[in-house]
Every structure is written in structure tokens, then in C-alpha cells.
């Protein structure tokens, strides 16, 4: 009944919930989604009732981790509580994460420029639920979403919750949640260890960091309920998800599909493949490569993608055409990721460039008898030793490329490559930085 009424009242097809096709203004927003019912607020140590609806929905975070949203909401409330009362110095806050550090992702900017009010609704609903009195929305410096968001924030009626637009530097690690809360608190977008934002975030306050798409889904759950939300999608991670599609496809772009949609159907939504596909990069540059064989039928949800050897992450799917060398792609990405270290932990500052050298040696088909041993040692040395998961992500990127493309690795060892130089569509890599030791965060302000 909820689904039917939602469809007839607002005329949205069931699987395109986030309003990507509608204009960004408030009037259009209200016409598309209807008025936002104000959810009940937090009372003492109890989060507002929306948390139960979110649990019923089974909403999981769309920023990359797919962590259950209701658990995060409850954790912030719990850590802000002192003997059943809300202590003033432990007043929670909300940060909406629209940083989109992954170069192959564009789903957050597409969402923010088409449905900014849905995200802002979600921020207000989350803030009431956890008892936050201020909120921030973060997009990277220079983001095309800035202007749309400024206009959207200005045209909303006063709700009592100030929402401040902030623009941290456009660095890969700046979108990591502890880095983002560090930036809001102290103006330094470097990750923090070992405190997690929900315990001790911006200015030491319990901080709810949620991806902007997660907050948009939250706003829909506040309107139409958890049961409605879970009517589509994979049971283990219900709802719809945005997907950034790219590579050897008819057209690149962002689609909204129910979670669990098979990979081949996602490719169909992007106009199909334009050349034989040898494999995919899943999840982004801290994600994983998979061979095309057997992956086409994999349902696009976190558990199924992981079982198939990939990572859904921030829902990025990039098709690598047969004319492209995956090891050369890996080489360029690994070098860029090494330069995106926050410059805080030794194994990352020194280990990632060492790993990038090993990968470069392989990709450029150098004859090097000790390379494999070195590469394996460096993979081990950068894993599990950083204050954030940046080095772990790079290690996974490298290790999964080796296992997804064993034939290509073997012929590179013999000085050959099966790709056509210069042909095909290549993964986007921004200008490379030289990694530096940066304890004061001067490059992250």
C-alpha cells in the first residue's frame, strides 16, 4: 500500500527514488516527494523513533563501508550520554559526507546537484533523531555542487538546525570519516587514530558522519517508512543504490538501481559494452579488480560482490576493455594513490611508493628477478599498519589485479603485453603528488 500510494501521489517509478531527473529547486522537490514529516526527536538517552524505522528498512551506508545506519545513529546517542543525560560538551553533530574522493565516482555530485533538498531533509531527520544542534555538509573545494547547495540551503524555511556548507581540500583521504570530522573540528583534513568520530569526533564531540546518498535514503524512510524502503533490493542490503559506471561502455554515468541488480543489467543501463571486457575495477581505487568471467551475473550488493572477489565500496563499476592493459592502469593509479597518503604513518609514506615502484617495474615489462618477492613483501608491510585504511586499500588494489589478470602478469614477465597502446577508455587519474611526511597537516588545510 505504501508503495502504491507513493507512486500515485508523486508519480515516481519505484526504482528511481532519489529524483535524479528532477530540477534541484525546493518547489520541485516538494512536488516530487511531498512534505517532510518532522520525525520525533531524541529524548534523553533514547534516539528518536526514526531509528527503529531505519532498522526496519535495513539501510546500510552508501559511502563505501555499507555499515548499518541504525547502529551508527544509536552509537552516537550512546556516546553522547552521561548518566542518562545529554552533557553539553558531548552535544552530537552531523556531517553529511559529499566529498567523493574516488576519481571514478560521480554519484554524489549527481545526487547533490539534482536532489539537494532530499539530502538536506535527511540531515535534519538524522539531527533530530540523535539530538544534534548543528550540522555540516562537506563537498570538496571546487566541487560543482557548491553553488546548488548554497542556493538550496538559502531557500529552505528556518528549521532551527543550522546547516553549514564546508569545503575541505580535494584530497583522497579527506573523505575518510575521521579526516572529515578532524577538518570540521580543527581545519585539518587528515585521519585521526584511534578515536572514531562517533565517540570523539569534531571538537571532541560525538559526530555522525554519513554519506549524502545514505541521508537521502533516510529522508525517504522518514516519509514513506522502513517497510516501503525494503520493498526493493537485496534482502541483505535493501533499497536502491546509485552506481557510477564507466570504461568500455556505450555511455558513462550514474544510474539508480535496486541493490542486487546483476552486473550485466548495469552494463545494459550504460548502453552495453563497446568492446570485449576482460575485467572490472569495482568499488574505486581502494577497491578490487575482478575478471569478467563469472562476474557478469553477480548481483550488485555488498555481500555478493565480495563473494565474487570484488568490493562494492562507493558503488563504482568500471569495465576494462580488451584493448586496455589493466597493469598499466594499475601502475598509474598506484602511483597516484601513493601521493595521496596523508603523510602521517611510515608504512604508508614509504611503503606505497615502494609498492608503486614494484608495480611500475611489472607494468613496464622490465626484466627483474627479485620483483615478485619485493612486491609480496611490500604488500604485507603496508597492510594493517596505518592509522586509516588508505594503505590497505592500495594493497588490495594491487593484490586483486595480480589475481584477476594472471595471464597478463605472466606475459608482462616475458616482456610482452596483450593491449593496444593508446586505444580504449582509461581510468581517470588526477595529477600525481609526491608523498611527503606531513605531521602538521600543512597540505590538508
Amino acid at each position, binding site marked *: 500500500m505504501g508503495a502504491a500510494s507513493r507512486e500515485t501521489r508523486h508519480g515516481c517509478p519505484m526504482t528511481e527514488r532519489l529524483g535524479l531527473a528532477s530540477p534541484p529547486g525546493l518547489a520541485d522537490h516538494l512536488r516530487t516527494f511531498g512534505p517532510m514529516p518532522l520525525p520525533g526527536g531524541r529524548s534523553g538517552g533514547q534516539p528518536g523513533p526514526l531509528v527503529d524505522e531505519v532498522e526496519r528498512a535495513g539501510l546500510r551506508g552508501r559511502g563505501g563501508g555499507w555499515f548499518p545506519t541504525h547502529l551508527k545513529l544509536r552509537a552516537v546517542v550512546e556516546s553522547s550520554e552521561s548518566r542518562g543525560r545529554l552533557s553539553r560538551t558531548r552535544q552530537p553533530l552531523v556531517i553529511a559526507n559529499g566529498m567523493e574522493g574516488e576519481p571514478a565516482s560521480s554519484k554524489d555530485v549527481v545526487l547533490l546537484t539534482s536532489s539537494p533538498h532530499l539530502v538536506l531533509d535527511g540531515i535534519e531527520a538524522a539531527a533530530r533523531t540523535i539530538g544534534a544542534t548543528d550540522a555540516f555538509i562537506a563537498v570538496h573545494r571546487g566541487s560543482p555542487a557548491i553553488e546548488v547547495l548554497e542556493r538550496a540551503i538559502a531557500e529552505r524555511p528556518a528549521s532551527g538546525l543550522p546547516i553549514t556548507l564546508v569545503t575541505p581540500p580535494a584530497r583522497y583521504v579527506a573523505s575518510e570519516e575521521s579526516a572529515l570530522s578532524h577538518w570540521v573540528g580543527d581545519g585539518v583534513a587528515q*585521519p*585521526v*587514530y*584511534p578515536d572514531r568520530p562517533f565517540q570523539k569526533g569534531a571538537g571532541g564531540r560525538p559526530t555522525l558522519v554519513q554519506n549524502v546518498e545514505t541521508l537521502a535514503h533516510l529522508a525517504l524512510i522518514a516519509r514513506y517508512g522502513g517497510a516501503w524502503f525494503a520493498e526493493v533490493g537485496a534482502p541483505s542490503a535493501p533499497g536502491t543504490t546509485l552506481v557510477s559506471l564507466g570504461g568500455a561502455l556505450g555511455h558513462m554515468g550514474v544510474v539508480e538501481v535496486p541493490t542486487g541488480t546483476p552486473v550485466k543489467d548495469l552494463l545494459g543501463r550504460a548502453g552495453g559494452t563497446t568492446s570485449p571486457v576482460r575485467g572490472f575495477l569495482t568499488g574505486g581505487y581502494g577497491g578490487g579488480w575482478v575478471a569478467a568471467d563469472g562476474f557478469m551475473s553477480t548481483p550488485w550488493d555488498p555481500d555478493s560482490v565480495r563473494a565474487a572477489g570484488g568490493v562494492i565500496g562507493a558503488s563504482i563499476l568500471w569495465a576494462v576493455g580488451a584493448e586496455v592493459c589493466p597493469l598499466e592502469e594499475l601502475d598509474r593509479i598506484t602511483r597516484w594513490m601513493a601521493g595521496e597518503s596523508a603523510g*602521517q*604513518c*611510515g*608504512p604508508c609514506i*614509504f*611503503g606505497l611508493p*615502494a609498492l608503486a615502484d614494484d608495480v611500475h617495474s611489472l607494468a613496464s615489462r622490465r626484466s627483474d628477478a627479485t620483483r615478485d618477492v619485493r612486491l609480496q613483501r611490500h604488500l*604485507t*608491510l603496508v*597492510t*594493517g*599498519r*596505518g*592509522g586509516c585504511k588508505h594503505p590497505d586499500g592500495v594493497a588490495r588494489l594491487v593484490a586483486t589485479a595480480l589475481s584477476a589478470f594472471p595471464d597478463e602478469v605472466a606475459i608482462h614477465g616475458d616482456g610482452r603485453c596483450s593491449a593496444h597502446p593508446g586505444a580504449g577508455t582509461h581510468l581517470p587519474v588526477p595529477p600525481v603528488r609526491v608523498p611527503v*611526511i606531513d*605531521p602538521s597537516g600543512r597540505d590538508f588545510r
Partner: protein
Amino acid sequence: MSDDDSRTLALDPIACDGRGLCHYAAPDLIDLDEWGYPLLRGGGLRMGISREERDAARDAVHACPTLALHLER
């Protein structure tokens, strides 16, 4: 007091800047990697410390000039 004698040696990788003194204070517990950063048993940021190892772990903690090592109950 406690019947649980186990301790955990925890490394804060952001505070650590690779002076390497922990290794010289407790060479049997802490190795250094090829860049001079401490390598704990198991390869991660925390390692279990037996009763026999506790004094050596304390020496490593006290040797660290950046207070990056902690012995936790």
C-alpha cells in the same frame, strides 16, 4: 589482583615517527621494517604480551620519544 595476566602492546602509527628506539629497548619483541618503523608480532598495530615479556614491553614503551607505544590491560 586480576587473574588475567595478559597485556596488549598498542602502537599509534600516527604518533610514531620511526626513531626505532623501541627496537633497541626490546629487540625480541619489536623488529624494524626496511624503512625503520616498528614491526609488531602479527604485523598489525597491537600484539599480545605474556607475563614473561612484560618488562621488555615496558622498556619499549618508556624508550619511545613520541609516546607512540602503550601497554594496555
